[in-house]
C-alpha cells in the first residue's frame, strides 16, 4: 500500500513537472513568435539599456586590457619600425589626398558648369568598436556610439578600405552593425569595370560574399572590383565593396555564381566611420504642399509657394 502511495506521489510529481515544462515552453514560443512579428525586443532592450550597456563595457574589458598589455610589452624596435611604416604611409596618403583635392575642385567646377546641385562632401562620425560577441554565427559589431550621439538605423558603416555594413539597432549609447557578410545581408553592387549591376549577399564566412544570379554571358573576371551601386537607397554609391575571387556555374546552369572577398577589414577591430550622407532619394520627389488658397488668389502677402526639398 505504501509502495503504491509513493508511486502515485512520484507519478504526480513527474506529471506536474512535465506540465510546468509544457507551460514554460508554450510561453517561450509565444514570446518568440510575437517578438518575431512585432520586434518588441528592441523596445525592451532600450528600456533595459542602463543595465545592458555596462555589461557590454565590462565584457569588453579583458580584450582591451590584452591589447593595452600587448602595446606596453611590444619592444622598442617593433614600435620604431611601425612608426616608420606609418609615416611612410601618411606621406603617401597625403600626396594622394592633395591630388584628390585638386580633382575634387575640378569636379566641383565641372558640376557647377553642368548646374548639378549636389554636394559630394560626406559627413562622417568616428566610432569605436566595442569588442563584444553576441552570436558567432551572425556577423554583428557593437559600436560605442548610439542614439544619443545621433546614430540612426540604416546608416552605412565604412572603414579605410570599403563598406563594412549598416546599423541595424541602436541603444542610447551603443549601436549594433550588421556586417555585409552576415547571411541575412544583401547589398546592391556594380562591377567597376563593366558596370554590371548585381547583388552581393553575405555568406556567413567573414572573407566571402556571394554573387548569385549573374547572367552566364556577363563579362566577369577574377579580380574585378565591386563598388556599391546606391540602388535601393541604403548605401551611397561608389564605395568599394569587394573583389571577385572565383566564378563558377550555379547548379541550374542558367546563371553564373561568383564569390568575392570583402575589401573592408571586417575581422579587425578598431575604429570605423559612420556615414551621415543620405543616399539619393528613390522615386519621384515629394509633391509640393498645397495648403491654403492657390498662389494666384492669395495676393502678394503669401509670395511664391514654398517647395519642399528632400535632404
Amino acid at each position, binding site marked *: 500500500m505504501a509502495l503504491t502511495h509513493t508511486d502515485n506521489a512520484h507519478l504526480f510529481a*513527474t506529471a506536474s*513537472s512535465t506540465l*510546468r*515544462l509544457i507551460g*514554460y*515552453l508554450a*510561453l*517561450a*514560443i*509565444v*514570446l*518568440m513568435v510575437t*517578438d*518575431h512579428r512585432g520586434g*518588441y*525586443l528592441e523596445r*525592451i*532592450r532600450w528600456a*533595459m539599456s542602463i543595465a*545592458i550597456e555596462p*555589461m*557590454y563595457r*565590462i*565584457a*569588453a574589458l*579583458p*580584450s582591451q586590457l590584452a591589447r593595452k598589455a600587448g602595446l606596453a610589452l611590444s619592444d622598442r624596435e617593433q614600435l620604431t619600425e611601425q612608426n616608420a611604416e606609418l609615416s611612410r604611409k601618411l606621406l603617401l596618403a597625403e600626396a594622394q589626398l592633395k591630388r584628390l583635392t585638386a580633382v575634387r575642385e575640378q569636379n566641383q567646377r565641372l558640376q557647377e558648369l553642368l548646374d548639378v546641385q549636389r554636394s559630394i562632401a560626406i559627413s562622417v562620425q568616428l566610432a569605436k568598436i566595442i*569588442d*563584444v*560577441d*553576441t*552570436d*558567432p*554565427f551572425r556577423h554583428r559589431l557593437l559600436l560605442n556610439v548610439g542614439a544619443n550621439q545621433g546614430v540612426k538605423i540604416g546608416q552605412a558603416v565604412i572603414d579605410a578600405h570599403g563598406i563594412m555594413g549598416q546599423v541595424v*539597432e541602436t541603444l542610447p549609447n551603443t549601436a*549594433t552593425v550588421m556586417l555585409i557578410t552576415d*547571411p*541575412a545581408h544583401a547589398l546592391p553592387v556594380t562591377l567597376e569595370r563593366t558596370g554590371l549591376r548585381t547583388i552581393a549577399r553575405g555568406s*556567413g*564566412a*567573414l572573407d566571402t560574399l556571394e554573387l548569385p544570379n549573374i547572367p552566364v554571358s556577363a563579362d566577369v573576371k577574377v579580380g574585378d572590383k565591386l563598388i556599391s551601386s546606391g540602388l535601393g537607397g541604403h548605401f551611397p554609391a561608389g564605395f568599394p565593396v569587394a573583389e571577385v575571387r572565383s566564378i563558377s556555374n550555379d547548379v541550374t546552369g542558367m546563371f553564373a555564381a561568383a564569390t568575392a572577398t570583402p575589401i573592408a577589414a571586417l*575581422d579587425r577591430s578598431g575604429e570605423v566611420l559612420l556615414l551621415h550622407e543620405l543616399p539619393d532619394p528613390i522615386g519621384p520627389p515629394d509633391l509640393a504642399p498645397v495648403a491654403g488658397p492657390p498662389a494666384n488668389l492669395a495676393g502678394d502677402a503669401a509670395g511664391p509657394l514654398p517647395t519642399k526639398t528632400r535632404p
Partner: protein
Amino acid sequence: MNRARTNAILFWSSVVLCFLLQLMPLPQALLPFKPYWLALILVYWALETPERVGLGLAFIVGLIGDALTGELLGEQALRLCILCFIILRFRSRLRFFPMWQQSLALFVLLLNDRVVLLMIRACAGEPSPPAAFWLAPVAGMLAWPWLFLLFDDLRARLRVHET
C-alpha cells in the same frame, strides 16, 4: 553571514560571470569553440542544489540572456528550460556518474540544445549555419570537468569558513 546567503551570492555571481563570458570576444579562430557557459553553470547548480534551480529560474535567466544578446526574445529561455527539465529528471542518475560519463551526457545534452536552436532558427526563416556550429558542444564537454571541480572546490571552501 548564513549559509543560504553565501550560496545565493555564489550562485548569482556565477551566473553573472557566465553572462560576461558569453559576451566576451575571442579570436576569430576560437569563436566556434566557445561553450554555452550559461547552460553549463545552470546544469551544475541543477545537479548540486536542485531546490534552487527550477524551470522558472532557467526561464528567467534565459530571458535575461536574450535581452543581453539581442536575439529573439524567449529563444534562450526555451533552450535552458528544456535543458533544466532533462537534468532535473535524470538528476539522481547523473549525479553519481563518473566524471567522464557525466561529460559525455553533457555533450549529448548540449548537442540536443544545438538541435533545438537550429529548429528555432529554421522556424524564424534563417539560413542554415556553417559546420562549425556543431563544435561548441565538444568545447562544452571539455570545459565541464574543470567547471565542476572549480565550483565544488569553491563551495567546499566556503563551507569550511562557516564552521
